[in-house]
C-alpha cells in the first residue's frame, strides 16, 4: 500500500499526538516501536520539548556519544530558547556541530545541569551518576538495542520513561554464553524494553510509528512484510516520488550496469554470482560490491526526492556486510579501484544511518550452512533498510536451496516469549522479492 506524502504526514502526526497524549496519562510511561526511518529522533525531540514545557524535567538517555550530540543539536535547533544540558565524560571534546548552540552546556557533573529542563547523556555516563535524586521523566533512545542490565543501572534516576527504538534491528548480546537467566523476566541479556514490558505490560502502552520517511515506496512494503509482520508501516512517498537517475552512460556495458539500472528503476537488484562455496571474504563477491559502488560513482547518479535533487556522492553510498573482515576486504577493494569516501561497515555499525544507495553482501552468500548469526533477522533488516533510493544485494546463487535444507533443531526455552519474525522466514520473504530483480554477473 502506498500513500502520498501528505496523507503519510497526517498519519504520522496522528500517531505522534496519540503518543504524546499517553505521555500525560500513563502511570509509568510509553513504548514506541519505530521502524527504520520513521522519525524516531523527531519524536524524541518533540517529546522532550513537550515534557519540558509542562514543567517536567527530563533526561534523555542515548547509547553512543554520536547519538547524544545528534539529539542535542536537533533539540537545540528546534528550541533555541530551551536550556539544554549535555552530560559528558571527562575526555569529551565538544564537536563542531554543537559549537554554535549556546543553549547547550556540557558538564561532567549532573548537579551542574540539574536546573536545566532537559539533560542528554549516554547510558554509560548516566549509569555512573549517584546521589542525583530523581528526574520525573526519562526518554530512552534505541531502547531495543540497550541491554537490560544497563537499564537497571539507570532506572533509579527517573520515575517514568518514554522508550523509543526499533524492535526489528539487532538485539543486544554478550560474549558470555550461559542459560542461567534464560526464561527469567529480568534476564540481563535481554533488551531493556523486553524486560521492562515483562513487568509492566499492563500499564505501559505500546505505540508504533506508521510511516517510514527513509524507505521509498519500492522498499517499505518489502521491509515491512519481511521484518515487521505484526506492526506494518508504509512509505511516506509514492511510487515515482523518489527517482535515481544515471546521468553518464558507461563505455563498456557490463552486468553491473544492468544491476544499477534495474536498481534505479525498481529500487532493488539482486546481483547474482555463480553458485560456489567460499570463504566469507569471497574475493569475487567483495570485488562485485566494490565494482558496483565504483561504477555508480562513475555514472553520476542523481537522487530525486520530495526534497529536490542531489548528486549521489561517495558519502551517500554505503556497502553493508555481516562480518568485519568482509568490510575490510571491501574497503581494500575500493581503495584499489581508487574510490574513497564510500561508507563500508557491518550491520552493527550501520544501525541508525541512512544513504541514497546501499550495496549489501548477502549474509548467506557462498555458505554451505546457515547459522543463527547469519539468519538473525535484525542483521538482514539493518542491511536492507538503510536506503532512500535503491538497494543492490550481491549474492552467489544457491541461497534458496540452502534455506530449504536448513535443519530446524533450535533449542526452545521455557517462558521465553517467541520472537517474530523468524530469521528463516524473513530471509525467505526478502529473497522471494529479490528474485524478481535478478541479474546474472
Amino acid at each position, binding site marked *: 500500500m502506498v500513500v502520498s506524502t501528505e496523507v503519510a504526514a497526517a498519519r504520522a502526526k496522528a500517531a505522534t499526538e496519540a503518543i504524546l497524549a499517553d505521555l500525560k496519562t500513563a502511570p509509568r510511561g510509553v513504548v514506541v516501536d519505530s521502524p527504520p526511518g520513521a522519525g524516531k529522533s523527531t519524536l524524541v525531540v518533540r517529546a522532550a520539548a513537550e515534557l519540558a514545557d509542562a514543567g517536567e524535567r527530563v533526561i534523555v538517555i542515548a547509547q553512543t556519544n554520536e547519538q547524544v550530540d545528534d539529539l542535542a543539536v536537533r533539540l537545540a535547533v528546534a528550541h533555541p530558547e530551551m536550556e539544554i544540558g549535555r552530560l559528558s565524560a571527562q575526555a569529551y571534546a565538544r564537536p563542531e556541530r554543537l559549537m554554535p548552540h549556546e543553549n547547550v552546556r556540557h558538564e561532567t557533573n549532573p548537579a551542574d545541569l540539574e536546573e536545566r529542563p532537559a539533560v542528554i547523556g549516554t547510558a554509560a555516563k548516566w549509569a555512573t551518576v549517584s546521589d542525583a535524586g530523581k528526574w520525573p521523566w526519562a526518554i530512552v533512545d534505541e531502547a531495543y538495542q540497550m541491554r537490560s542490565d544497563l537499564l537497571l543501572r539507570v532506572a533509579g534516576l527517573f520515575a517514568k520513561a518514554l522508550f523509543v527504538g526499533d524492535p526489528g534491528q539487532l538485539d543486544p548480546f554478550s560474549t558470555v554464553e550461559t*542459560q542461567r537467566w*534464560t*526464561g*527469567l523476566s529480568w534476564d540481563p541479556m535481554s533488551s531493556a524494553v523486553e524486560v521492562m514490558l515483562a513487568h509492566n505490560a499492563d500499564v505501559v502502552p505500546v505505540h508504533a510509528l506508521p510511516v517510514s520517511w527513509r524507505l521509498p515506496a519500492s522498499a517499505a512494503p518489502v521491509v515491512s512484510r519481511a521484518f515487521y509482520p505484526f506492526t506494518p508501516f508504509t512509505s511516506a512517498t509514492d511510487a515515482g516520488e523518489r527517482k535515481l537517475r544515471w546521468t553518464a552512460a558507461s563505455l563498456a556495458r557490463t552486468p553491473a550496469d544492468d544491476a544499477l539500472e534495474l536498481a534505479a528503476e525498481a529500487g532493488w537488484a539482486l546481483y547474482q554470482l555463480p553458485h*560456489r*562455496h*567460499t*570463504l*566469507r*571474504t*569471497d*574475493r*569475487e563477491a567483495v570485488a562485485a560490491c566494490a565494482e558496483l559502488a565504483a561504477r555508480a560513482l562513475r555514472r553520476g547518479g542523481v537522487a530525486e526526492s520530495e526534497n529536490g535533487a542531489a548528486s549521489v556522492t561517495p558519502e551517500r553510498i554505503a556497502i553493508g556486510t555481516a562480518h568485519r573482515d568482509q568490510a575490510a576486504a571491501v574497503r581494500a577493494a575500493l581503495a584499489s579501484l581508487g574510490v574513497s569516501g564510500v561508507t563500508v561497515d557491518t550491520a552493527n555499525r550501520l544501525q541508525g544511518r541512512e544513504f541514497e544507495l546501499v550495496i549489501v553482501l548477502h549474509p548467506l552468500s*557462498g*555458505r*554451505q*550452512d546457515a547459522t543463527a548469526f547469519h539468519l538473525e533477522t535484525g542483521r538482514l533488516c539493518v542491511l536492507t533498510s538503510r536506503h532512500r533510493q535503491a538497494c543492490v544485494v550481491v549474492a552467489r546463487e544457491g541461497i534458496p536451496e540452502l534455506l*530449504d*535444507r*536448513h*535443519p*530446524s*533443531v*533450535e*533449542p*526452545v*526455552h*521455557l*517462558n521465553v*516469549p*517467541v520472537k*517474530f519474525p*523468524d530469521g528463516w*522466514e524473513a530471509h525467505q520473504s526478502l529473497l522471494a522479492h529479490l528474485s524478481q530483480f535478478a541479474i546474472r554477473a
Partner: protein
Amino acid sequence: MPDPVDARLDRLRGRANPRRHNARTISALATNPGCARRALMDASGADKNLIAEHTGYKAPFGQSNFAIIRGNAFESQVKENGAAPLLGLLRDHLRLPIEEAGYHDFNEALGNDANEVRYARTRQVLTSADKNQGTLFDHPLLRLKIAGRHAYLEPDLIAFQLHGQFHIVEIKSFSVIDGQADPAKVAAAAIQSAVYVHALRDLLGGDPEQVHHQTVLVAPENFSSRPVVTGIDVRKQLTVISRQLARIGRIDELLEKFPEDLTFDLDPAPGADAAPRRDPDDLLSAVRQVEASYAPECLSTCELCYLCRDEARGTTAALGKTVRDDFGGIEFVASALNLARGSAPAPDREEVAAQLRHGSALRTEILGETL
C-alpha cells in the same frame, strides 16, 4: 489404481512393512532436510535400524526401560481420576476459566478396533463436541498423510477444548527445575506438539484457529513427581512441519534421480525371525547410490549415522560444520592440507589457500615444525 509414486516407494522399501510414523519421526523430518538418503528412507518407511545393523553399522541408539517406566508412571499419575490434578493446574496456572470439565476417554469405547474406525470415531466426537463445555479428550487418534500413506498418530496427549478452541496437551517426564528444562527436550516436545496441532486442524477441517497455537507441556516439577504446566507457543514449529510435509509431498522429484529398480529390500527369510538374507555389500552399495548429507549431528539423530560417517571419512564435513565452514568449500581434508603446504590452488580457491598457508606459517613460526 495405485499411485505410481507409492509403488516406487514400496519397491524402494522392499518386502518389509513400512515403519509406522509417529509424531517423533515426523518431527525428525526437520533434522536434516537436505539429506536425500534420509528423505527416501523416511518416505518409503524403510527400517533404517535394520539396514544399519545388516550392513555392519549398528546404531548407538536405544531406550532405557527405566525411562519408559517412569514416563508411563508419570503419565498415568497425571491422568488418574479423570485427570483431576491436571484440570486444577490448567485452571490455576493457565487461568483457564473452567470450573469443571468433562472427560472423554476414546479408549473406553473403542478398545482394539482398527485405526480407521478409531479415527472416524475421534473425528465424529471432536467435530460435534459441545463448544460450551470444557472437555478433556484422552487417547484420540489423529492421522496425517505422509508420502501417500496415512500415518496414525496415537499421541499420549489430551486434547482439551474450551469455547470451541482446542489446546494440545503434551505429557513429558523430563523435569522442569525452577522454571527451566533441557532446551533440546523442550524443542522436541514443541515440535511434536506442533505435529498434533497440525493433525487436529486437519481433522477438524475449516478454521485453523479452532486449534490454538499455544500448547500445554505437563512435566514433573523439580525433583518430585508433582506435575507443573507451562505454555509453549508452537507457531514457528508449525511452519517447519508444514514445510517438511510439503517437501515429502514432492518426493517424486527426488525419486526421479534414481533407477526404477533401486531397492533397500532386506530379503527377509520366511518365518517369525525374518532374518535378512540380502548380501550386505549389495545392500550397502544400494544405499550408497543415494547421496547422504552427513554431519556429526547425525550421530544423535539418525540410525544410519555410522554408515554415513564411515563414508564421509576424510571429508571436512566429518570434522563438523564450523570446521567445514572454516575451510570455505574445500571438501577433503587432504586437499586442505595440500593447499596449506603451498600447492597451487584452483582460481576459485585462492583466498582459502592463502589463509591456509598463513595458518600453516603461524604454526611453523610458533611450534617450529613444518606442516
